[in-house]
């Protein structure tokens, strides 16, 4: 077994990284928004919203992928509209990013929501008496204080995106260089006799990337914790 990577493997790795990074990037802002609403607001239908957020987790990934295909496919009702604006998702890496983002969405929302719920509203009230409006309060008080939750959400979302397979292959197929991510490549290798060695090589690659991401996140988490005083002596 050698780690000297073939061209296709490099392509899968870099594509996976690109897809995962974009998946996290596009789903983070809505995740923060939804988490905030779920943590801080009470309204009829809140449980329904929460249930909907959890759907990608509950549905078999194939189903999610299929629904994405129906919705964002070239003939899907959203896909058609997007196509008019020049945005094509189906069978493109952008679609893979969308799929991975959606699959990781519930994880990100949860982590961030937990963090928001743990923020003492008294601090926000203090900021309010100092003249900070809602947006300023969020930006200067809430957001820095939920940094650990956002970081956790990003790590979960990224890891999930790196490992996502079912929805991705169903939505955007397994096209080398365009939509063949690491897991898709692993799948393809596993489908043929003797492909295990190559699959293992890719799996090790995925593990190394994940390890790197987690290492970075742990280091960041320590910094963040110190910054927001969570590590202060008792």
């Amino acid at each position, binding site marked *: 077994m050698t780690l000297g990577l073939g061209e296709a493997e490099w392509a899968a790795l870099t594509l996976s990284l690109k897809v995962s990074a974009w998946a996290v990037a596009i789903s983070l802002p809505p995740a923060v928004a939804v988490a905030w609403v779920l943590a801080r607001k009470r309204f009829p239908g809140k449980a329904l919203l929460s249930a909907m957020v959890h759907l990608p987790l509950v549905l078999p990934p194939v189903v999610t992928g299929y629904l994405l295909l129906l919705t964002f496919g070239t003939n899907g009702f959203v896909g058609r509209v997007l196509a008019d604006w020049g945005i094509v998702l189906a069978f493109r890496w952008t679609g893979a990013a969308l799929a991975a983002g959606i699959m990781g969405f519930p994880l990100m929302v949860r982590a961030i929501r937990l963090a928001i719920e743990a923020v003492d509203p008294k601090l926000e009230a203090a900021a309010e*008496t100092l003249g900070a409006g809602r947006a300023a309060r969020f930006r200067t008080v809430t957001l820095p204080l939920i940094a650990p939750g956002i970081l956790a959400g990003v790590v979960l979302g990224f890891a999930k995106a790196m490992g996502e397979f079912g929805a991705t292959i169903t939505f955007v197929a397994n096209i080398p260089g365009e939509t063949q991510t690491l897991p898709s490549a692993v799948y393809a290798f596993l489908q043929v006799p003797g492909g295990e060695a190559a699959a293992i090589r890719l799996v090790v690659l995925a593990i190394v990337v994940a390890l790197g991401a987690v290492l970075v996140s742990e280091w960041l988490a320590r910094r963040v914790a110190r910054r927001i005083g969570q590590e202060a002596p008792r």
Partner: protein
Amino acid sequence: MSLSVEIGHRFPGLDLDVAFEAGAGVTALFGPSGAGKSSVVNAIAGLLRPDAGRIALADTVLFDAAQGVHLPAARRRIGYVFQDGRLFPHMRVGANIEYGARFAPGGLDRAEMKRVVALLGLEALLVRRPGTLSGGEKQRVALARAWLSRPRLLLMDEPLAALDEPRKDEIFPYLERLRDVAQVPIVYVSHNLAEVARLADDLVVMQRGQVVLSGRAEAVLSDPKALPLVGIREAGAILPAHVAEHGTDGLSRLTLSGGELLLPGVVAPEGSTIRLRVLAQDVLLSKAAPEGLSSHNVLPVVVLALHRGMGPGVAVQLRAGEDVFLARITQRAATEMGLEPGMTCFAILNATAIPRGSIGGAAGVSPG
């Protein structure tokens, strides 16, 4: 700029029903733990929306239940020193202090900030995180933060409870200046009557969610009815006095309507009017004019009334010129001296017995 408060609110276990007016200057909220002081202050700040009532600051209606008006706290421009500090744990002390100024018209006044930081002894703390501060340090930072947000009204919920006397003595003149020069009205919650007496123009005494006594601080404090509310040790009057002359030995000659006193530590300029706090327990009575005494502060007085409470004490209401104040002596002494309304005698006010902290300057106090 006057504040008018009239609110009703039900908590499980407490019905808040409070109305008072607070003019320019300092209004003290005084009352036992759980009386509802913080709740009133929260309502003024906009953090508690009462069930009923109306709150207005000068021309601005902050809250009106009937009209459905509830101005968000962020738009009230009311500084608030919280009883529980509430520093932002993710910002260094410096950033905490500067926080409010971002939203204030005109931004941060660096010179003012330097002064406040020096006054509160925060220079060495600016780069520290709130998590590592001591209790008193936290409170000082909170004070600086509210102060520098350039509020139109300052709410202070026991801001000095964690501070030592020398530090308090340093801070008082600045609060007085804020009140007098910047014309920022202050609502001041405190259990400490010495603080209240020093700072307060108006006094609102609360109990179980209700206002039980309110009015000008002088009037409330010299009212014998206030005695059980404020505690025997803290009862006393506030007298206006005119600064006639500063002596070279540090003693100042003050003229009252009923005589003259010599006091140390008066910083108000000659010609100004200041307030003196005279605790009932710091007044001695003598039938004859005392001689060879270490105190020069003897005023001829007329006995107005004797209030016998429970226990061995008597509160004697006295008049010196136009000023009314109390002396607290024992029953036995009252009987032996044969005190009766209408009698004249002499009151000895121990000069050093009038706390320096109780000498509030009316205007232009130069901070010490």
